């Protein structure tokens, strides 16, 4: 699971933008889900040298399989996707920095959440409190905590799906909205 977090999830935005060239949005989402399903079925990942290359290859194979299954196959789409070059490893300095970048990314993902959601994620993930205690600490029901966890996780998955740029813009927007809302309380 940790491997997926550090080697697969960070490349999802790139895989998506690559798939977007040949697929419509609804098919794209299906392909992403099926790709994750395939990754989930891996018993051992020690033989995979590059998570990124694996992710691209798996997604391409699923697209090809779908094209072959489809009743009408536009021959161009097959050749087109066959000819797409897999974007392989990142340049090595980037790989070295990847660990640090990942922590930075996790921090940004949590910080980008709406206020109560962010507090809940901080208590759950930084403090390590179970949901029951998070609820007690914040004086809300466990139901609210569970709903906010689901909501926050949806936003985080959305940010993972978007490219970095869009995620950044969304983050700024959320912050601005929040600041506008809280402006009376600010310093």
């Amino acid at each position, binding site marked *: *699971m*940790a*491997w*997926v*977090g*550090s*080697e*697969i*999830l960070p490349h999802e935005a790139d895989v998506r933008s690559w798939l977007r060239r040949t697929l419509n949005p*609804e098919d794209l*989402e*299906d392909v*992403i*889900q*099926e790709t*994750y*399903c395939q*990754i*989930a079925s*891996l*018993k*051992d*990942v*020690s033989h995979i040298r590059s998570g990124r290359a694996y992710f691209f290859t798996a997604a391409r194979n699923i697209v090809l399989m779908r094209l072959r299954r489809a009743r009408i196959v536009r021959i161009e789409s097959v050749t087109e996707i066959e000819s797409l070059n897999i974007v392989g490893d990142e340049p090595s300095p980037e790989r*070295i*920095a*990847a*660990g*640090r970048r*990942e*922590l930075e990314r*996790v*921090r940004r*993902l*949590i*910080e980008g959440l709406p206020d109560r959601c962010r*507090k809940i*994620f*901080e*208590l759950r*993930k*930084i*403090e*390590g*409190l*179970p*949901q029951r*205690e998070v609820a007690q*600490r914040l004086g809300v029901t*466990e139901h609210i*905590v*569970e*709903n906010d*966890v*689901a*909501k926050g*996780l*949806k936003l*985080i*998955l959305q940010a993972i799906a978007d490219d970095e740029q869009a995620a950044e813009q969304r983050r700024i927007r959320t912050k601005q909205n929040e600041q506008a809302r809280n402006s009376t309380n600010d310093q």
Partner: protein
Amino acid sequence: MNKRETAQTINDRAAAWVARMDREGSDPAVRAELKAWLAGDDRRSGAYFRAKAAWHMLDRASVLGAGQTQPDETANSPGFSRRRLLWGGGVAAAAAAALVLGVVGMDFPTTPDQQIQTAIGEIRRVPLSDGSLAAVNTQTALNITMEPEIRHVSLETGEAWFQVAKDRTRPFVVEVGDVRVRAVGTAFAVRRSADGVNVQVTDGIVELWRVGDEANIQRISAGAHVFIAPEKQIVPVTAAGETIDKTLAWRTGQIVLDGDTIAEAVAEFNRYNVRQIEIADAALGTQKMIGRFRTNEPDAFARAVTTLTDARAEIGADRIILSRN
């Protein structure tokens, strides 16, 4: 089903499932419900797996708190940048290479919920999701899996002390090679070294046995410790007490020497520091010392040795050599 479920609906429900499992995943009924939902469509398994991976990725955030966060500090996001130094970037990737992924449909029981790794000299206090606390010593790797009937911790290398939250229905079992240590609500430390496994009980009672020899369960109570060498019988327990406080001083970043030889003390400091201490003269190593030091200050120890004995210390940037004058 006359209308195909949209991918977005599946993604949203997968996120809701992860939230629900995080709250009440120990309930077999909830797990069965999840299993049924997953079985409906492969895309659901994929979406759930993706959401769960993202949820676990956020565990990295725990290092931002480094276990010492005050509750009211967490709301301040600027606090993040101050506390990020404990995380070694390469460690996670290295651990990942050996990771075995679980199979879809069973909520991935073979995948640990939490993996804890410490670098040389790093000591962390990590709260576990069941309310227990783990103090994790230098160069240690732990895998933690919380299941409905059992709380399971596997100590791959190193040493950890556990303060176990009481839960009669879910025993807390630490696995160290073929040795098993079981506790319900108690505190104990387990250390794995090349020679064997050392268990020290600081509170309550633990039960200890070897896989394949379940008929022979030893009960060890607070203040005692036991050492289990490979292939050997579990040796009767030695009462300890003060020794335990001393050997668990690492939890506060200390090494306490009480008549230990210099050679033993050096071996202890070398567990915590890249800058290793070497003893050039074997006779010097047999001398005994009393004192209290920080784990990360081998130079202070070396200077104390030169004050207390006739030794000389060459304190370099990458190593410290102790020799006789």
